[in-house]
């Protein structure tokens, strides 16, 4: 996937480039609005990460000129959490926005969401190693053993399994499982993960649900026993 980052803060731009490259993106970087506009208009990207405040040409203007010819998904980065900026960005045709300071994996999650948008192929049976999650019958089994989960535990597991390999922050999990879309200070997600882990991981040889300290949780097969 090709991504263009238009960001004038060099440190931010650099870590975004490195982080996204390591996530498998091929990254182009523009440090001001003029370069950004040129690259955005003359190349085809899968997604553009666009800072709102830029020297030369601001993000909103760049977005306007882009939307005249192209439909590339755009994720706006705004420094101010003002409704005005948000509304303006979305009106001008941004697909999503993030308020600085943002966490890197939330950025990745949102980028994936907007690039996937509209072409999600829902499978009804998710597999992670020997774990099976049937989304239709809502049954979960691991190593052939049926596991009983509560509704929320199932929703949490389904989310993690659907996005396996991707780190999900507590905020994202709270939003997608409980529909609580704000940064909460609760440890609800931790407790829920602990309980889920007790059911799907502890009785078995290997762990599938991993904690990434300071970032969130990921479900993947790592091979090493816990």
């Amino acid at each position, binding site marked *: 996937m090709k991504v263009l980052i238009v960001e004038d803060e060099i440190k931010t731009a650099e870590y975004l480039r490195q982080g996204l490259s390591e996530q498998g993106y091929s990254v182009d970087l523009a440090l001001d609005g003029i370069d950004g506009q040129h690259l955005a208009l003359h190349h085809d990207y899968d997604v553009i990460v666009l800072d709102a405040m830029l020297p030369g040409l601001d993000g909103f203007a760049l977005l306007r000129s882009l939307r005249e010819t192209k439909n590339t998904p755009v994720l706006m980065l705004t420094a101010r*959490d003002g409704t005005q900026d948000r509304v303006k960005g979305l009106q001008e045709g941004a697909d999503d926005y993030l308020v600085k300071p943002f966490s890197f994996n939330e950025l990745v999650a949102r980028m994936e969401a907007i690039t996937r948008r509209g072409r999600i192929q829902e499978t009804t049976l998710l597999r992670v190693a020997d774990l099976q999650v049937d989304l239709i019958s809502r049954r979960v089994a691991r190593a052939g053993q049926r596991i009983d989960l509560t509704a929320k535990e199932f929703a949490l597991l389904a989310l993690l399994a659907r996005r396996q390999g991707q780190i999900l922050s507590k905020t994202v999990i709270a939003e997608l499982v409980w529909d609580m879309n704000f940064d909460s200070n609760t440890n609800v997600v931790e407790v829920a993960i602990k309980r889920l882990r007790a059911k799907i991981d502890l009785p078995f040889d290997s762990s599938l649900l991993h904690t990434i300290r300071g970032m969130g949780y990921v479900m993947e097969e790592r091979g090493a026993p816990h």
Partner: protein
Amino acid sequence: MVRLTDFRLSIAARLALLFGVVAVVAFSLIALVLNRVLEIELERHQYEQIESRTQDMRYMLLHARPPDIAQRAKDKIDALTPSDGRARYWMWSDDPNYCYGSELPRVLNETSNRSVPPGEQGPQGQQGQQSQQGMIDLDFQGQHLRVIRSALVATPARAAVTLVVGVDTHPFARTAHSFRVALLLITGLGTLVVVALGYWVARLGLAPLVRLSQDAREIGPYNRAQRLQLPSLPLELAQLGASFNAALDRLEEAYRQLSTFNDDVAHELRTPLGNLIGQTQVALTRERDAAQLQELLQSNLEELERLRLIVADMLFLARADQGERASRLVTVSIAHEVAKTAEFLELLLDDAGLTVQVQGDQQASIETSLFRRALTNLLQNAIQYARCGSIITVHISSRETLAHIAISNEGVAIAPDHLQRIFDRFYRVDSSRTQYPQHSGHGLGLAIVKAVASMHQGSVFATSEHGVTTVGFTVALQQQQRQQ
């Protein structure tokens, strides 16, 4: 370039000018009345003079016995006529013996038989005109006279005679003139005196205002506790002063909050920053293997995440402070929102052995994410302080235009002086900041509830009695459209 504001008058000058206008009007009215009275009096005086002179002559003419009535009458006229010409007599008759004085102006003859309506001015010149009381104005040989004509019918002793007596109006006119000049002077000088006195009185009356402004000038950021001295102020200003003092109280409270807020922000940021710097420095003093470095980075990340949350919450509070209102409103059942939030916190409730009971319901138009955030914070607060195994009650009711959401938990009571400050930023009842409370947030939870309430045109409340602590907030049932 002179600006308009440079022409602003002081209140004292304004009052003095107004006093001046009032004085001019009052003095003028008095002068007009006095002038009129004088005119009437002078006219009466003229009339009486003429009338008494006429009476003398009439008496003589009516009662004199022959012979030589004509000659005696003429002699008497001579005797009565003053040498300075202030009064004049004429007499005429068909009998030439009875004619006296230069020939009477023909005009008088012509006009005397016609009655001229009082007040109607005839043409100027040798024109006679009749004034009130039968007096006729007459210009004669450069003199302005006022005359009365009386006819005496013939008697056996003498022929019919017409007697005309006149007085010079000049002395009267002079009196009237002097009087008017005096009135004008009195009006002018009086007005000036009133203006000057008025200015002085106004200054005197406004002295408390000057004192007030001096008092106000002394209030600054370094003596915020200073207030205006109310007892020395007159009633009208005392009210103003009281309002001003109340405003100062509110400002001081806000200032105090802001400055403790700054302290608290510094403190909250300093701890994670200190940890970050310290840990990183320690890690860099030796060669570390990858696992240790990873451990450090993860620890750093946790601190940074905490910083990010504080900054995000402070930005949120700042937006609420700037008057941002809830948008993306939907009309929903509050009980449903409470149930959803309770579901979110279910695991925490389970762990503490608590149950949530919802009483009542209201429909309100709210921004659900904000509303759930406030509910989450309140419920979390209740969970933290609730007695283990008790019931948390969420009571939903409406009063006038507001929906009340009250969350009660059993537990240790909060002292009243704490109670009114629990919504302050970074305020903690136990005030121990030595360690991070593991999961109770960073002291902005209830401040955020307050912000959410104000974004929905509501407010917050808290009570604590009989072992039950109730903390809650209100939101407008119908959000008013924001006036742009």
